[in-house]
Structures are given as structure tokens and as C-alpha cells.
């Protein structure tokens, strides 16, 4: 079914996704993946300047959508792997959680706007005291001399660090699935057996965790790790099998061809 993504200006990937699902009533199942991804790519092209962090958010969500979509195209039944299945649902839940959060604040913003509009109908009196009392006011400049004024001027006109230099927030978003895999390939052989929770316990950004999750899935697909989840929603155990393990299991994976994982061939 051909589907045109109508794109007004979207503030970001969540905005776009919320719009697609809620306004356009899009169901991943019904929509051609290619058109969704096209919509995202067009959104990227619309950006006047390519903002890395926004672009990577868009791409990451597109990747997650691809993952979810590809699930739907797989035959259900014979070779259904429950662990894998649960993992995908968990991934979906993360995305859903973010969408719900985003939607919540959109609604809150509307409420704030209403409050501001109501409050804006009134104007506060800020006239101050009558001139006859001004003489009584304590001299605020007491103890201040011309040098203090000069100092204050210099402080006020110090070149402030331009906010775009402050890139602390970019760091967590810059990670790609490839990067995460590279990290895991170094980390996992050393650990042997671990859990997804332990692997991600030091990560504060949800996005970071999602990326690691995708990376773990990739490694599993290649047969480089084995996953188990004893209970629903329980910890996901990860065991490093390595290339030997992968071959033993008839997997096709090797550490080398992981460099291409970012290009999903759905």
C-alpha cells in the first residue's frame, strides 16, 4: 500500500512517530517500511543544517522501526524463539515508553499555555513607591566605587562560552550500534557470562541502553553470543560464544563482518 508521509515541520523523531501513529493512524503492519524510512530521510533533508544528535535520533528510531517491522514479516510459528521474541517486545516497550512520555509533556505544554494565556489577561502593578518615599530608600550604592562598577562591567561582558561548545549532551547520543558492537566484542570475551542489566548498569541514557540492546541482538543473530531469559521480564543472560561457538552452531558470524550491521537489509 503506497503511503505518503505528510510532513509538516516535525520537532524530532518522537513528534513524527506520534503523528504517524495517532494522527495518520498508521500501523507498522500496514505501512510499507520503505515509506516510513523515506519519511524519516525526507525529514532529515528538511533540516536546514544537519544536527548530528537529531539525525542520529531519527536514524536510531528508524532502525528500531525496521527491527519491529522485520519481526512482522517473519513467519510466526515453527522457529519462533521465545527469548528473541521477548527481547523485541522489550525493545518495543522502551520506544513506547518514550512516546508516552513525549505525549505527556506535549499535553502538559498545552495546559501551561492555557494557564499563561489566562494569567496574561491580567497585568501586575509594578509602579513602585511614590516619589516622596524615594529619598528614604537605602542607598544601594553605599560602599560601591567606580572601580566596582568597572569590574561589574568587565564581568558582564566576559565572552561567555558559546553554548554550542558545550557538547556534553552529544556524547551519549553519538554512539552507534556499530560502536556498541565493537565495545561488546571487546568486553564480552573478558566477562564470559554476564547479564544485560550488568552490561548497562553504568548507562544513564535510555538511548544508550537501547543501542546496546540492538548490538546484543546483532551479536546473537551472528551466533557470537547466546542469550537466555529464565523468567518473563527477568534478567537477560548473555554468554560469549565467540567465532568458534558461532561456527559450531552453524552460525555464519565472524567478528569481521559485523562492520556492516548498521545497514539493515530488511
Amino acid at each position: 500500500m503506497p503511503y505518503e508521509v505528510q510532513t509538516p515541520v516535525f520537532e524530532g523523531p518522537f513528534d513524527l512517530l506520534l503523528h504517524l501513529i495517532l494522527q495518520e493512524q498508521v500501523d507498522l503492519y500496514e505501512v510499507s517500511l520503505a515509506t516510513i524510512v523515506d519519511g524519516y530521510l525526507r525529514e532529515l533533508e528538511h533540516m536546514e543544517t544537519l544536527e548530528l544528535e537529531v539525525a542520529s535520533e531519527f536514524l536510531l528510531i528508524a532502525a528500531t522501526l525496521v527491527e519491529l517491522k522485520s519481526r512482522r514479516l517473519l513467519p510466526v510459528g515453527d522457529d519462533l524463539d521465545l527469548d528473541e521474541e521477548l527481547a523485541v517486545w522489550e525493545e518495543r516497550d522502551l520506544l513506547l515508553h518514550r512516546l508516552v512520555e513525549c505525549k505527556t509533556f506535549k499535553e502538559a505544554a498545552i495546559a501551561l499555555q492555557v494557564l499563561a494565556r489566562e494569567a496574561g489577561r491580567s497585568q501586575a502593578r509594578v509602579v513602585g513607591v511614590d516619589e516622596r518615599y524615594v529619598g528614604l530608600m537605602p542607598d544601594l550604592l553605599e560602599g560601591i566605587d567606580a572601580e566596582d562598577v568597572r569590574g561589574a562591567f568587565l564581568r558582564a561582558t566576559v565572552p561567555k562560552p558559546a553554548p554550542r561548545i558545550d557538547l556534553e549532551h552529544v556524547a551519549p547520543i553519538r554512539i552507534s550500534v556499530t560502536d556498541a558492537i565493537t565495545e561488546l566484542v571487546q568486553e564480552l570475551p573478558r566477562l564470559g557470562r554476564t547479564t544485560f542489566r550488568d552490561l548497562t548498569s553504568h548507562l544513564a541514557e535510555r538511548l544508550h541502553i537501547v543501542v546496546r540492546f540492538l548490538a546484543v541482538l546483532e551479536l546473537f543473530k551472528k551466533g557470537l553470543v547466546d542469550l537466555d531469559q529464565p523468567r518473563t521480564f527477568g534478567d537477560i543472560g548473555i554468554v560469549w560464544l565467540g567465532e568458534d561457538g558461532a561456527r559450531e552452531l552453524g552460525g555464519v558470524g565472524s567478528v569481521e563482518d559485523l562492520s556492516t550491521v548498521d545497514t539493515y537489509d530488511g
Partner: protein
Amino acid sequence: MANSPDRLGDDVRAEARRAIEAIVLVTEQPIETGLLGQLLELRPAIVEGLCVELAAEYEEEGRGFQLVRVAGGWRYQTHPDQAAYIERFVLEGQHAKLSAAALETLAIVAYKQPISRAQVASIRGVNVDGVMRTLQHRGYIAELGRDPGPGQPALFGTTQAFLEQLGLDGLDALPPIGDFVPGADVVEQLEHGLRPTAEPLSDSLAQLDGADTEAAPPGDGS
């Protein structure tokens, strides 16, 4: 009730009311009940009672102004129903409207403060540097301190000016965030839109038991 203004002598009471009217008239920021009490040498609870009484009186008399409690203090302001007249001559100093992006960012800061720029960005899914800067310029948000964690990012919160702009007495007067969580229907719609398999999970699990293999959903050209 010991704190009720009714217990004051008539003279003290009348004097206190007049003094409140005079002081609030000249204050440039909302004046706290505590400070009023200090100036009047009356307990804050009594001052509060008198203010509430005056406010009700103005409303009843149909005055064009109101005595209101905003950002933790009392101030005079024009009655909302006089907005049309006020707008005719108060043009300067009126702030431009906030964009949808700015409002959303402001909402996140308001409800999640103290919060770092990166955390706001992660909720909105976009870079918020420009918007946060605008909000800071307008005086609606301010740096509260630094996170002790790695990178020591600046933590932001809303200001008195924010409360005044929204006509709120305090942050606890914000409508509860729970009011804005999307309803079950919306969540279901989102869930449905993002479902990784054509059937809900329970169906898939059921299929694990029964060997009945349904045909895969028809591809759609992707």
C-alpha cells in the same frame, strides 16, 4: 480560631487592612505574607486572612483590579475581564508568545526540575540548546546548580518569573502531571502501531503450544 482576623479589635483590623492595601500597592514583586506580617506586627495567618477577605471584597464590589496570591506573595493586578482595555495601551514589555517547542521544553523543566539539558533533550528527542537559551533569556528558567555526577552538567529549574507568568502561587499549584498521561485508548493505539508481530504476544505464546502455523502476514512491498 486564634488566627482568625475576626478576633482582632475593629480598630486594629481596619488599620491592618488599610496598611495591607497601601503596602501591596507599592510593591514591585508579589509581597510575602510573612513580610507583611513583620511590617504590620501581626501573625502571618492573620495577615493571610485579611488579604483573602480584601480579595473577596474587591471581587464582590466589582472592582477593575484584583488582589491575588502569585509566586508566593500578594500583588494587585488588573481584573482579567478588563484585558481588552489593558491591551489597548500596554504594548511595550508584553512578551512575545512562546513557540510550541519552547512550551514543551518549559513543561519538562517545570515538572522534572532540577534537570540537565541532556535529560531534557533525551525526553524531547531533539537538541534543546537553543530553546533552553531562549527560556533562560526570558527569565523563565535558571541554572539551579550542577549535577555532582560525571561532566557536572548544569541543572535547570523554573523561576519566580515563570510562576508569575502562569499566575501560579507555587510549583505545587501546577496541575498534576498525571492529568496529562495519555489515556488507555491512546496508549493502545501507540501499542498497536508499534506491535512487533501481527498478533499480540499472548497469541504468539498460544501458538507455541498449538502446532498450528498460520500463514505469515502478506508482505507489503518493503
